């Protein structure tokens, strides 16, 4: 019975997302250069761009699936891997790098047992390495979800991660 309710809820969520995606495709269809704006919006809706979504976009815009896949894999902003509940992005821009961001990255990786581009088994954490988020004044910087943490050192990490582990 409970499982049924869950299935119904999932189905409802799925339908809603699909309807939003169809609206986006409708809005851009026929415009030159439509593919990238549509992918941006699709990633906002789904959080990532799995194969099914790419296929749907290809069909909707009348673009070969190979082109869609080509664009998705070319740009680092687009991802085919879902993000964890908490997405950690350690800035590896130059300013952060010379201030020890590499060490931060290693420590976090060891602590969570994941590498860049991976998601932890419990889907709680994912790890990214963006190139310069433009907050060089506070280097080294990392973001967890939307929160920015600057002027960090490796000793502060344990406490910081602990906050998100609960």
């Amino acid at each position: 019975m409970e499982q049924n309710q869950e299935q119904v809820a999932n189905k409802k969520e799925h339908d809603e997302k699909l309807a939003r995606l169809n609206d986006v495709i409708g809005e851009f269809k026929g415009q030159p250069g439509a593919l990238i704006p549509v992918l941006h919006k699709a990633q906002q809706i789904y959080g990532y761009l799995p194969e099914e979504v790419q296929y749907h976009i290809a069909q909707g815009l009348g673009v070969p699936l190979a082109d869609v896949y080509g664009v998705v894999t070319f740009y680092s902003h687009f991802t085919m891997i879902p993000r964890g509940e908490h997405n950690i992005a350690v800035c590896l821009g130059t300013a952060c790098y010379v201030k020890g961001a590499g060490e931060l990255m290693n420590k976090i990786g060891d602590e969570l047992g994941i590498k860049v581009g991976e998601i932890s088994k419990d889907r709680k954490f994912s790890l990214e390495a963006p190139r310069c988020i433009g907050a060089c004044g506070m280097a080294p910087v990392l973001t967890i979800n939307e929160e920015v943490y600057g002027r960090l050192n490796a000793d502060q990490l344990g406490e910081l991660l602990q906050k998100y582990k609960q």
Partner: protein
Amino acid sequence: MADSTHILICRGTACLSSESQEIQNELQNQLKNRGIEEQVRVVHTGCFGFCARGPVMVVWPRGTLYCEVRVEDIGEIVERHILGGKVVERLLYRDPKTEINTEKIDDISFFHRQVRIALRNCGLINPDDINEYIARDGYKALGQVLTGHSPEEVVNIIKKSGLRGRGGGGFPTGLKWELTRKSPADLKYVICNADEGDPGAFMDRSILEGDPHSVLEAMAIAGYAIGAQQGFVYVRAEYALVVERLEAAVNQAKEKGFLGKNLFESGFNFDIDLRLGAGAFVCGEETALITSIEGNRGEPRLRPPFPAQKGLWGKPTLINNVETLANIPAIILNGAEWFTGFGTEKSRGTKVFALAGKIGNTGLIEVPMGISLREIIFDIGGGIPEGRQFKAAQTGGPSGGCIPAKLIDISIEYDTLLEAGSMMGSGGLIVMDDRDCMVDIAKFYLEFMCDESCGKCTPCRVGTKRLLEILERITEGRGREEDIGLLRELGHGIKATSLCGLGQSAPNPVLSTLRYFEDEYIAHVRDKVCPAGVCRKLSKVRIIPEECKKCGACAKVCPVGAIKGAPKELHEIDPEKCTKCGACVEKCPFKAITK
């Protein structure tokens, strides 16, 4: 309390991340509770540039700058300063060297050496309110141009000003406008390149966050000059705040009639749309950027034809960088001659730099061309922290090169930087001290370029990978002496044969560090030593027996249990287990462990 009290709070990205939004809310609450919210105006602005001391706020009319303000400090600022007319001493800027507090923003050495043209409104106006831009002569230049100048005249003013592209290459802006203007076509486009991908550079972001209308106005002026009716801003999707502020600015400009149809009743139409980049460094290259707006993988193509002849959808297209455009309205209003009064003969005007790395005042500055690197680093930047030695500065990001300490008096101009083996680039300036390994820095940039190579041409795709492999083995102690010659040969080959600017400049960090720091490369290759102690596999962690007080602190902190010896016994490091993390070096209170 003066009626004209204004409090400006920085809400650039760096300050926002240290709670400037909460600070503003708290301030407004407290003013309201005391019933003085009418007399005191609180304005949020774009970046002041003083990111090192953020969050910052300035209280006018005195011009008092408060640094590193916390929410808890607001009560005191309101009581003591706003109501009491006295300064809150402890929040003033304190010069780390002289230990003297400075109250006024204009007296602080970080600010008073600067000349602000492109950043003229950043930190002064509320970027979300077009009226504040208009009050600072905003859209006046566009009006003047549309009602009083022919397109040729506009092109001539820009040519005379000597303005050169601020995105990296330094191509004369007026000439670019003229070439695009002279290409016959039914449709033309203006593109603002805001795909700031250079790690360590954040000037475009700050301009667009702090003063978006200056760029929109310049695009409309450019459109009139070259005969285009449509503009695009190509901006990084990662810059969420920029996108938000730009969207709002475009809408406001349309409402006011500064964008759209029949501007200033001149019959000229101009519209601007945003296009989001998706995280590809190569899209900063103009032909790749065009391909990306067209909806494809951002791969560059051969030039000629240049975008001025055949650009977006095959039409003549003018592409200018954000900072270049931000200069345009000021040049139109003040005249070309005024602009040529700043800078040097071949590099007119000013340049915005993002200071980062091992420097006291990280942040954003705008200085006249021809200033020396020494003035930037030591007078404005406040020197190197922790009493360390200045070693080199990297300009031009991954496409540029390093300037070593012996060239610290170099004049900052397009051509002098090129001669020194670096380049102006977009304006990232990363300062390195004696603890930075130049081979490691070169490897860092190469990793970046390898990642960002689009893969279209072989010299860049394969060549950068081979370069990186050589650097990896050098930093891991497997380098061979002939590797140094190989790096040079391969580097020059990649430069000569790559398709676009990315590949042609990718070997620069390697070649320039080789030029000035060959001895460091030799130390890595021949002696298997990293002089700066950065390259882990080359470092040997060692306990100096004479200095060791046998306290056991090192053994406790070692994460892999590589240090043997109970307290009161001489400790020893097991080289097999040691990962050279350096935790023991940091921990030892007697500095008895070296790396």
